[in-house]
């Protein structure tokens, strides 16, 4: 290797140029990440498993490197809820102990074909339920900017891998903020794409009407590269869409700000000042800023915490100790179920399964589940109307910087409120991008702050344009 690889500033775009120029090989790049993992993984708890064939993968990828293949030889981390054929995968849950993926998820297959190097599977909140990775059965992931704080969640491992340079990029999944919230906390770029734009085939189901896979990267361009590589209709996911190319906007996008929602209770002053500074920066770059109203947005979180548990209780009924995973013996068949699920699932998963069973039960179905779906439609209308006058809706990504480990662990409702700015994009199905916008200094630590840009369905292009303008790519 001619020069030491600077992992802190490396992007997919730069690494690709170096690989093509022959400045370093795919094997040398992979080795650089393996070294970093050896140094940092014990402290950060990012990887549940580092694969044993990383260098062999890199050697194979070397042959695929070309000017047109942007992803060959790029080392990535994968959230532990995506199936990689022949590899263990368990959504950081004990109930899938010993499970080996029998096939590749579609997104995984596409990246494999491109020559991406799979470093390992990353920690997460069990079955993607949580906002801190404290719900992992394998311990919390630490924030690379301050190890006494959470990395966020549920894709905390994937995001800390990128933020701590233990991977060049990562995949996460986002049901209500699980890519964007940790991305804000760890100072990286996180994209929750349009619902259906990337196949969910091979992604373990949490809230099927909201789940989506998305990239976590060091730059906006990198997120775009990965999104382009994974998107498209898939015969194995009936909700996937044929993603059309959009006409580029003729002028600078107009940004709408729902101030009535942004400037609410419990939003840290540094978040608001960073947000205002970001708006100024956009204004200077020629963007028009408008105030907008989203009349039903205050109900988003309540809608979300009805629909998600309902879908969770349904989706997770498949874990019965019969077909795969953990099996705990009981006195009879019912006893087997009770023991397997009682011991195999962690506290938050059990809480959501019971809550979902409650909102779907016959006496409460109309009051909760049906009502939530109706309000979800109102939310969709609010956004549809808003996008008639603006191209982007901007909010902070989170209400504050990353919190200290343990601070919210005993209060599930406080943890749910972490998602206040992010859940709406999932309910409406639109794309949303979190980008780093500033920091808050606490002691000698600089803790990252993110802003969130949302656009209309299949308008990721607008988010990429604005994101690049903002960070100066």
């Amino acid at each position, binding site marked *: 290797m001619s020069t030491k690889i600077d992992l802190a500033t490396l992007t997919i775009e730069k690494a690709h140029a170096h690989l093509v120029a022959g400045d370093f090989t795919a094997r040398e790049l992979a080795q650089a990440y393996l070294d970093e993992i050896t140094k940092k993984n014990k402290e950060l708890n990012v990887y549940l498993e580092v694969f044993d064939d990383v260098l062999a993968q890199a050697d194979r990828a070397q042959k695929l490197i070309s000017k047109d293949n942007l992803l060959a030889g790029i080392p990535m981390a994968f959230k532990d809820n995506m199936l990689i054929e022949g590899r263990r995968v368990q959504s950081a849950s004990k109930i899938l102990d010993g499970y080996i993926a*029998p096939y590749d998820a579609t997104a995984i297959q596409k990246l494999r074909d491109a020559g991406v190097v799979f470093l390992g599977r990353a920690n997460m909140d069990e079955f993607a339920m949580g906002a801190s990775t404290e719900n992992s059965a394998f311990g919390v992931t630490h924030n690379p900017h301050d190890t006494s704080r959470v990395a966020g969640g549920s894709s905390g491992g994937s995001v800390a891998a990128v933020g701590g340079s233990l991977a060049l990029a990562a995949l996460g999944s986002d049901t209500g903020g699980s890519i964007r919230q940790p991305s804000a906390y760890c100072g990286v770029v996180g994209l929750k794409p349009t619902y259906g734009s990337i196949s969910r085939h091979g992604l373990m189901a949490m809230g099927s009407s909201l789940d989506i896979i998305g990239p976590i990267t060091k730059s906006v361009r990198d997120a775009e590269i990965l999104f382009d590589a994974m998107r498209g209709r898939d015969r194995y996911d*009936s*909700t996937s869409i044929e993603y059309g190319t959009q006409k580029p906007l003729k002028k600078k996008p107009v940004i709408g700000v729902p101030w009535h929602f942004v400037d609410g209770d419990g939003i840290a002053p540094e978040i608001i000042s960073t947000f205002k500074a970001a708006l100024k920066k956009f204004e200077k770059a020629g963007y028009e800023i408008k105030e907008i109203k989203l009349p039903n947005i205050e109900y988003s979180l309540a809608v979300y915490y009805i629909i998600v548990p309902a879908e969770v209780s349904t989706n997770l009924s498949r874990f019965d100790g*019969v077909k795969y995973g953990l099996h705990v013996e009981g006195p009879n*068949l019912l006893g*087997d179920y009770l023991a397997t699920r009682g011991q195999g699932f962690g506290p938050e998963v059990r809480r959501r399964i019971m809550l979902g*069973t409650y909102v779907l*039960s016959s006496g409460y179905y109309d009051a909760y589940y049906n*009502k939530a779906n109706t309000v979800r439609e109102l939310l969709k209308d609010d956004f549809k109307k808003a996008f008639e006058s603006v191209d982007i809706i901007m909010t902070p990504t989170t209400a504050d910087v990353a919190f200290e480990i343990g601070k919210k662990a005993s209060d599930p409702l406080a943890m749910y409120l972490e998602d206040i700015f992010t859940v709406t994009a999932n309910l409406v199905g639109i794309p949303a991008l979190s980008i780093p916008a500033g920091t808050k200094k606490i002691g000698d630590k600089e803790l990252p702050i993110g802003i969130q840009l949302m656009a209309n369905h299949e308008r990721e292009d607008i988010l990429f344009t604005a994101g690049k303008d903002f960070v100066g790519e």
Partner: protein
Amino acid sequence: MITLQDIEKLATLSRLSLTAAEKEKYRGEIDSIVGYIDMLKKVSTGKPAPVMSRNKNVLREDVNPHEPGMYTEKLLKLAPKRDGQYLKVKKIL
């Protein structure tokens, strides 16, 4: 107000065994979450819209089946208990 009996019923319906301490903890937590989501009762929506999927007939045509048994071993291998080509469970009746 969520009662301990509610939690016991939900746990049974959900096929989850809980300890006495867990039941009490979940009672309080689920009660506070239900208290929060109750805010939706304030929204006047009129008649609830039926939940409809935009998808119709999403199943593939029933043609060109794959070779029988192609995936059997791959999937059965993952079962905690099996008997030949069968999954093994305790007697149901």
